[in-house]
Structure formats: C-alpha cells, structure tokens
C-alpha cells in the first residue's frame, strides 16, 4: 500500500488532509483537515446540509472523497485500497435510522458480520453478541426482530452490533435525532459509558449536554467547511466565529 501522505504520529487513528468532496458540481466538503487520536472523542455539529454526514461517511468510504488524503490507522483510503472491508471492520458506524437488518433477530444481527467478516466461530460470535447486548442492557430482546423493539432499543442494538466487531473507532451520525425524547437518554447513556471506557468516537450530534460532558473537542461545520474547532468549554462559552455564535444561539434558545 502506497502512502503518499507524511506519516502521522502512531496514535493518530483518523487523519483527513485537505479533503474535498463534490456531488457533481456541488461541493459538499471544502478543504477538511481533521486529526483524531486514539481515545479521543470528537463531537461534530452544524446546520442541516453542512456536510457532517458526508464527512463521517468519507471516513469509512461510504462516500468517496474527490481529493485530499484520508488515512485510517495508517492506511490511506484510495481507489487502490484492496480491502476496504478490512478497514471498515475497524471503523464502526451507527446511523440515524438504526438500519438494523429487518429480517434477522437481534442476535443474528449481531452475529452476522462477526461470522462473515471476522470468521468467528458460531459459539464465540453468540457469546460476544450476548456480552454486548448486556452492555447495552437489553439481553432479553435477543430473539426478537427489530420491529418489535422501540426506537431507543433498536439504536442500542445498532451500537452493540458495531461493538461486536471490536472496532478501533466508532462513528455516530445523529444517533438520537430519530428518537422520541424519552428514549434519547437511554442511548446517550450507552454512548457515555462507551466514552468512559476509552473508545475513540466521532459523533455528529446536537445533544449539547453530551458534548459538554464527553467531548474532547467540538467541531462546527457550515457549508462544507470546518468553521470552528475548540474544547467544549471554549466552544460553548466563547465561540469565536460569527456563524458558530448564530448557530449556538439558535439551538440553545429553543
């Protein structure tokens, strides 16, 4: 694997350098530079359409960036990356709409990728699955189908499913925005626990309480650019950029 970009420090898991992304003529990402070290928790926020999803989808190559460099755990994402799936299994992802496999029980949802990608034995996959279901506090739902669970439970299953792959990093794309208010906390709790255990996380969310208590850095995006990047205290109390101030005043007052 050719690595054109200069080597980052060993504990850097995600490195984005001058990344641009176009959809046709529309530029969704403009000169994105981001570095995430092992164990860091990053919260990304910004108005709808600002490119947050596009950015984190580029990190596991659900979208292909147009130019610039993205290096995940020392491997650069290029067309030539032979085994993108080897990289993807180190990068877990949790979606806004859960995206559980509807035709499989919860347990099967958790076992499928372990069996196919990690080539784990059935018994071991089941054990791992049950372990993480307990971690997200719903082991009793193992034999149900996704539709039989509430939204909050489904999202916790989705987190457990990502954890079963023992990833280095987990990406969250607005994991609580599709949830009824009373279910948001059960998901945030799981995420907070995960953060405490030292998981590397990049999390698109507008849950400011979560950002304050968990994030090492908050990133504000607007119109495809990273406008501001700061520690949570500074970010909320002393935003530098005008656009950040406007955004914060909007979400904090409502």
């Amino acid at each position: 694997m050719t690595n054109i970009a200069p080597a980052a420090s060993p504990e850097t898991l995600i490195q984005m350098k001058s990344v641009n992304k176009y959809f046709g003529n529309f530029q969704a990402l403009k000169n994105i530079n981001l570095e995430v070290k092992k164990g860091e928790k990053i919260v990304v926020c910004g108005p709808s359409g600002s490119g947050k999803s596009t950015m984190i989808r580029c990190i596991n190559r659900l979208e292909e960036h147009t130019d610039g460099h993205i290096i995940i755990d020392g491997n650069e994402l290029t067309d030539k990356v032979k085994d993108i799936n080897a990289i993807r299994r180190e990068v877990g992802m949790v979606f806004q709409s859960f995206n559980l496999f509807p035709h499989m029980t919860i347990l099967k949802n958790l076992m499928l990728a372990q069996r196919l990608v990690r080539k784990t034995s059935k018994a071991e996959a089941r054990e791992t699955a049950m372990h993480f279901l307990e971690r997200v506090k719903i082991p009793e739902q193992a034999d149900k189908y996704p539709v039989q669970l509430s939204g909050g439970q489904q999202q916790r299953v989705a987190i457990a499913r990502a954890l079963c792959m023992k990833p280095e990093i987990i990406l969250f794309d607005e994991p609580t925005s599709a949830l009824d208010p009373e279910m948001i906390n059960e998901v945030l709790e799981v995420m907070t626990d995960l953060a405490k255990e030292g998981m590397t996380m990049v999390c698109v969310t507008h849950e400011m309480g979560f950002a304050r208590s968990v994030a090492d850095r908050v990133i504000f995006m607007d119109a495809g650019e990273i406008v501001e990047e700061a520690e949570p205290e500074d970010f909320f109390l002393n935003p530098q950029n005008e656009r950040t101030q406007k955004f914060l005043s909007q979400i904090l007052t409502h």
Partner: protein
Amino acid sequence: MIFDFELIADSIPKMLMGIGLTFQLLFLSAILGLILAVLLLLMRISGKWYLSWPAQVHIYIFRGTPILVQIFIIYYGLPQFEFIRDSIFWPILREPFGCAILALTLNTGAYVSEILRGGVLGVDRGVLEAGAALGLSVRQKFIYLTVPIAARLSLPAYSNDFISLMKATSLASTITLVDMTGIARTIVSQTFAPYEIFISLAIIYMILTWVFQKTFGRIEKYLSRYVKPEGLA
C-alpha cells in the same frame, strides 16, 4: 337456462384427467422461469452493457407480445428452419409439450425478473450501508441482505404472476395438448354444451387459484413475521 347436471357430473372427472398435465406445465415452467428470471436479473444489475442489454431486450419482447403468439412462433414457427430441425434441441421442439414449457418459461421469466428487480430496488439503502460499514463484501451483502429482503418484497407480486402462469397453461390446448382446457374443448365440440362444461372448468380453475393464493398467503405471513410488530416491547 336448464343445466344438464348429469353431463357435468360425467365431464368433471374427464377434465380432471388433464390436471396432471396442467400441473406439469405449471410447475416445470414456474421453476425454470424462476431460474431464468434470476439470471436475467443478475444480467441486468451486472453493470455490464453486454449482459444487461440482452436481458432487457428479452424482457421487452416477452412482455410486449401476447403469450399465444410466443407459443405459435415456437411451436409452428421454429420448424420452418432446417438448422432447428437438425439441432440437438429438435426432440424437445418437435413436441408440443416441450414447446409449451419453453414458451411459458421464457414468458414468465421475463415478468418474474421485473418483479424481482422491484424487490431488489425496494431494499432499504440504509440496511445495505450498515452491511458495508460492518465490512461485508458486495457479494455477502447481496446473499445475506438483498436476497432475503427482496424475496419477501417480491412475494405478493410473484404470487399474482404464478396465478397468471397457471391460467396461461390453458393455452397449451391451442397446440394440441390435452390439458384440462383441451379436454373441455373436445367435450364441448361433441356435446355442444358450453355453459355446463366451461363453467365447471372455470370453477375448477378458481378453486386452484384459491388454493395457490392461500398457500402464498401462508408463506408471506411466515416471511413477514419480522414486519408486523406483535407484542411490542
């Protein structure tokens, strides 16, 4: 109108002697048609023009023309060519049964392929992305996610097509095969009692339709166990 019930009682067993042939035509072409449909679908979604093109042409032609014309072209038309008569397929194409199976297969394959495509297109993109994000390969996503989900989505439309296929088997009677419809036509030409015979036969077909619909309904219900929320937690 006075119905000749004696004639009906006499004729129904005679017509039912053709049910074996009806079933042979139905099940054989349904299975072969399904295989063809999957092949056509794979060709269409292969992303290679030299595969997807022929598949699309096949579908366009066989959905755009009457099945009766297809049957006639294959049974009466193909023997016009000497190379067909000399080919290894001649033993099949010489027989009306082989021609009927071929025509029904090519026809239903085209329709079912479109149904399956609808199912594949109906699979939630997010689910496939979740598979990709977990590291599943393209092939694994297809086998473990797309196929089972698309199969369930396609089932209602497929069951309708299966019924259509059953009805189409009756056209085999136009190329000398004696299925139920063929027998009924013979009886009518001898007795000239179209009401008694054709209505009895229609009822037999309706019963078959009902049985198949119920069966497919069962399968659908089983496959949909994960769709309807029951005992929501």
